[in-house]
């Protein structure tokens, strides 16, 4: 890949509650050269790194990149949207946004690529190399610490990981804000 990681901050626009990078070059760079953030408008799975489309970021991506100093988000009037405001948007959109974000941050901090796992029925699908580059990503499903599991959900987790051939991990954030990961494997 010819382009290097972005040195200049990328700007994204808050469109209602969604976050979009309209600069196609910077968007492409953010996706292909800096951790596969977001999704290109009208492109489901980019096969080659020559996509020329707007890049929609998840609110988790946006908060993380803003905290890392890599992204500035502007509202309709061109005013900077602070991270706290962005987090509020996240909390409004997402029931357990805070815990989900702590897990997202923890995984990104381990140099993993964290993408939406919605199509697999989990919060995240996590890659070491990136989507399209490997066949063994794993699924991470975030649950609130004070939630209670019906044992049947353990069976579902085990079954799901078998049917999609991906490790299925349940993550929760304990009271000391530590992220814990549990894996259930069928034994007999």
């Amino acid at each position, binding site marked *: 890949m010819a382009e290097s990681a972005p040195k200049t901050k990328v700007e994204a626009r808050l469109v209602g509650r969604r976050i979009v990078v309209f600069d196609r070059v910077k968007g492409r760079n953010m996706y292909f050269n800096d951790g596969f953030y977001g999704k290109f408008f009208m492109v489901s799975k980019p096969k080659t790194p020559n996509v020329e489309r707007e890049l929609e970021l998840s609110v988790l991506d946006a908060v993380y990149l803003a905290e890392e100093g890599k992204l500035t988000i502007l509202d309709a009037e061109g005013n900077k949207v602070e991270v706290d405001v962005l987090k509020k948007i996240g909390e409004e959109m997402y029931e357990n946004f805070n815990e989900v974000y702590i897990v997202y941050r923890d*995984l990104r901090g*381990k140099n*993993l690529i964290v993408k939406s796992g919605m199509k697999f029925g989990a919060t995240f699908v*996590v890659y070491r190399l990136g989507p399209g580059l490997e066949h063994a990503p*794993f699924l*991470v499903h975030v*649950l609130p*610490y*004070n*939630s*209670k*599991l*019906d*044992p*049947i959900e*353990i*069976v579902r987790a*085990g079954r799901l990981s078998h049917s999609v051939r991906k490790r299925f*991990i349940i993550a*929760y954030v*304990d009271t000391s804000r530590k992220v*814990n*990961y*549990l*894996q*259930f*494997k*069928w*034994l*007999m």
Partner: protein
Amino acid sequence: MAGGEGCGVSEAIRGVLKGEHVEIPYSAELVEKGYGEVEGENLLLNLCEAAYLLDRGDLMVVDSGGKRISFEEIVTLGAKTDPDFWVKLLVYSDLRSRGLQAKVISGSQPIIVVDRKTREGEKRYLVVCLEEGKRIGFREVEVFIRRALEARRELVTAIVDKEGNISYYKVDKVIGV
């Protein structure tokens, strides 16, 4: 009757019901297979072991007056003081019939320890019986994880559904995700 591991006794052993236990004469064979607690010249079987052996036809139980005690009576007695008795018996019997050495741990939690000989060596499990519909919090899971760790056993959940079907799932705490 289920197949699998027999206790290797051709004739049913005679046991006497004493409170919450069934007393049988000491048997090196049964001790080796993980049954009972040795007490002097005798072996004390807990009600779960007694119910399992009785069901297999390896044991007959009488009360102190010599009256025959049925499987139903043992189970009813066991469930009187332990609401999890039937679930424990289900899982215990299933594990035993798979040829695994199992031992019910007395206490408030339905826990069974299992030793399994495999080609790779011996596997040591701490099996927690969980019932469908009976929700469990992460705090409880953490307690089980710690307990298994302290006992140097792998944590396994035996999930028992509404009809008594059982699925076993191993629980691992993933550290290096």
